[in-house]
């Protein structure tokens, strides 16, 4: 499970699962919530009617980033005959589903990137003891250097 590519496959199948395997729990919860909220909100806005290839090919392809949920929906409804009329907000709903897929692709790419190590700037710098400056020497008195008044 430490293989990044295996984690990426899980991240594609279930949003947030890749970060969960990397033990990045906040990111896992965030991606799971964002992607699934956008996906199901889009389906609700679109009247729970799945988008098909002939409706909009770009949205049809984009929502495949959501993994198994959209694959199941496509198998169930993607090739069904078209209803007479589309819902009023069908375009925006399908845009939600497409963007959910694209956000999950961002999560997959984030999982594929190597784990960040502390950079040079953020690493703890060695403590350097700063010596207090030496007392300032008193200014030379008149006549000691160079003579005055000739």
């Amino acid at each position: 499970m430490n293989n990044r590519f295996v984690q990426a496959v899980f991240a594609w199948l279930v949003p947030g699962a890749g970060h969960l395997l990397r033990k990045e729990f906040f990111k896992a919860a965030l991606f799971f919530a964002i992607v699934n909220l956008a996906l199901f909100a889009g389906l609700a806005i679109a009247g729970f009617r799945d988008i098909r290839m002939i409706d909009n090919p770009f949205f049809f392809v984009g929502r495949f980033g959501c993994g198994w949920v959209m694959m199941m929906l496509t198998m169930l409804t993607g090739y069904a005959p078209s209803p007479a009329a589309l819902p009023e907000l069908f375009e925006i709903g399908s845009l939600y589903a497409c963007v959910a897929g694209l956000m999950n692709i961002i999560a997959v790419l984030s999982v594929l990137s190597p784990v960040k190590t502390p950079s040079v700037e953020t690493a703890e710098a060695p403590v350097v003891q700063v010596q207090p400056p030496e007392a300032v020497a008193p200014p030379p008195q008149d006549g000691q250097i160079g003579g005055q008044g000739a």
Partner: protein
Amino acid sequence: MNILPLLLFLPLCLGISLAITAAKEEGASNIMVKAFKTFFALSMIIFIGCVILFGLSKYL
């Protein structure tokens, strides 16, 4: 004018901002603060641009 479709884009944009920030930043508070800052900054830019265009359209 039906404003509902326009309002539906706001949560989507916030989600995109959160996803992009979470992909490149570390730490929960850091992610949330930066994502909301980006979202509100871009929203204000669009809002101010719309106000300017609306004002210009009244006089041109």
